[in-house]
């Protein structure tokens, strides 16, 4: 049996114009939690729906456990559980009725009581779906995906719009599924979600994978695991044009232990291996050039920094 999910050179063009996915290849191993991380409109949903067999790719091939969607769609559907980005389940059905409806489509589903228990919906089993909170609705959506005892769970933006507590509940549910040997593919534009949940992830932008690896591999690409951010004010106002900005950046780059430099508005961000070497030198440099230090902070590097390094943009640009 092949890997749970494998795709090669996927392309999807809408109406012959919009290229949503542009040559994307992935291989996801059994028991892995794999994340597609990218901004809105990057092609994550199109990709996951092609993998789920809900959209036909314009070209490229998808294999689920070695089978294509044309081979035996019904069997593949027995093996996978899906939560779409947005599904409004029937509001006039009760939670239990909804789960039983979905359970009835599978050959050997879980018992409704077990799934209610696992998804912490037992108290709500007789509530109408329309009366549930956002977090409860999302847990119900995931329970309809889990009720068929899937081997692969596909989750499209599972925690978008949820409060922090509901997000953590859902993360726990995903981890439990994974611990039982399930494979997970999820999309998200939350870097913290990707960092905490995913064993491996692919950063997607404009329909292409621009980086792939474990969260720590990706952060390693920054060169340093720490970020030093600071703002300076200048007394002599000779600066301001691009050349002297670049000259400034070059100066910061030459500080000890600095791997890369970028500027965001008036803040300078340094990717740093060892902050205790960089910071004293930074303070000296600021004083020597007659600047004032207005703000200084250090933090752990995140996937957001990786995304910014790769694209020059933030994940969530409103």
């Amino acid at each position, binding site marked *: 049996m092949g890997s749970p999910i494998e795709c090669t050179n996927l392309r999807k063009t809408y109406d012959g114009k919009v290229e949503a996915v542009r040559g994307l290849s992935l291989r996801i191993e059994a028991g892995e939690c794999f994340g597609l991380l990218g901004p809105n409109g990057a092609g994550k949903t199109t990709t996951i729906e092609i993998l789920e067999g809900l959209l036909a790719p314009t070209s490229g091939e998808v294999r689920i456990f070695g089978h294509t969607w044309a081979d035996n769609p019904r069997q593949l559907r027995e093996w996978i559980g899906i939560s779409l980005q947005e599904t*409004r389940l029937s509001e*006039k059905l009760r939670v239990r009725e909804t789960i039983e*409806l979905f*359970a009835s*489509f599978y050959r*050997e589903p879980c*018992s409704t009581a077990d799934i209610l228990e696992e998804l912490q919906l037992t108290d709500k089993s007789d509530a109408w779906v329309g009366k549930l909170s956002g977090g409860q609705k999302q847990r119900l959506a995931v329970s309809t995906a889990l009720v068929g005892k899937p081997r692969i769970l596909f989750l499209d933006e599972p925690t978008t719009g949820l409060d922090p507590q509901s997000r953590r509940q859902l993360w726990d549910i995903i981890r439990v599924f994974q611990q039982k040997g399930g494979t997970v593919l999820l999309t998200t534009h939350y870097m913290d979600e990707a960092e905490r949940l995913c064993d491996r992830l692919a950063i997607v932008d404009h329909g292409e994978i621009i980086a792939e690896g474990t969260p720590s591999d990706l952060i390693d690409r920054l060169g340093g695991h720490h970020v030093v951010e600071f703002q300076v004010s200048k007394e002599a106002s000779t600066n301001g044009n691009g050349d002297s900005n670049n000259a400034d950046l070059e100066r910061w780059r030459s500080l000890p232990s600095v791997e890369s430099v970028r500027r965001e508005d008036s803040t300078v961000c340094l990717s740093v291996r060892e902050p205790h070497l960089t910071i004293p030198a930074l303070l000296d440099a600021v004083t020597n050039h007659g600047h004032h230090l207005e703000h200084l902070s250090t933090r752990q590097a995140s996937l957001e920094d990786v995304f910014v390094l790769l694209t020059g943009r933030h994940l969530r640009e409103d």
Partner: protein
Amino acid sequence: MATTETNAPKLNADSNQPPQPILPARQNGRWSGYRHLLWARILELKREPEVVFWVFIFPLLLAAGLGIAFRNKPADITSVVVIDGAGAQKTLAMLQSASVKNSAVRATVLDRAAALKAFHFGKFDLAIESNPDGSYTYYYDPARPESVLSRAEIDASLQSAAGRKDALTTSAQSSSEPGSRYIDFLIPGLLGMNLMNSGMWGVGFALVEMRQRKLLKRFVATPMRRSDFLLALTSSRLILMVIEVGLLLSFGVLVFHMPLQGSIVSVILLGSLGAVTFGGVGLLTACRAQKIESVSGLINVVMMPMWIFSGVFFSYDRFPAIAHPFIKALPLTALNDALRATIIEGASLGSQSGRLLVLAIWGGVSFILALRWFRWT
């Protein structure tokens, strides 16, 4: 109604006793998805007050309202106005003496201006003026049947009161038995219209709503058989149809003493064919629409011609004869004609193969095209 009774307990058993697993592994049979889809659909309909109102209550209100408004009056009362003048009282006396043996005439005396005004507003069917020379002038409206009738009747009354002898001896037998009244015409039409409405909305609208909510997409992401889904939707229509038809027919029979000449089985079979046909047309209407706003418009465009032409409220004989072949090719016309023939005349289904064929073609072609073009996502 027999079908409802056999269906209901079976469905109840499903909901009240969900298959509790005795062994840890629970196994679903071939029809488990279909049964749950059907039951979910019925629960949703039952819990939607609007559906209960529009499908069950509204047709009854419509039948009651129209039945009362167009009920046959005890005897057609001719309402006339006599223009006040020298001969007015004499005219009134002649009419009253004549009306004893003739049909009822209610005559009122008003001055000329008021009388003509009231006549023009339709309060009276005829205005009568006696001229100084002893002759009479009738004011009547040739476009109003009751005015034309009234003129003939009043003229006959006045002539015979003035001494005209009838050349022929005639006698008349009244006939206003159940079966020939407006309500008897109306109820089968309402049945047909209701089957069309609930087929178009119950299938077409419901599908687009599910598509818009991404529920269809969510369903096809499971191993659900797509044919089971459509079958469950159709079955829920049939179950609803039995209740709809049963309610409206019982209402007609019990409240308006409408005769039911044909067999109830024929009516249910016709209802089933109608429900499936309009379910198919609804499916076709909804096969690609993404938004409920667009499908609502489409449904109205499809239904509007049939409301007007298919003889729901009045006979399509009123339209020019050249249009009749087209009108008869509409599915609602075929259904209404077949329902009327079965209910009022007791015609057998075998004698109406043309109408059944029209329905079957509409339903069949719609289903085939709808399945070809249908979008689940």
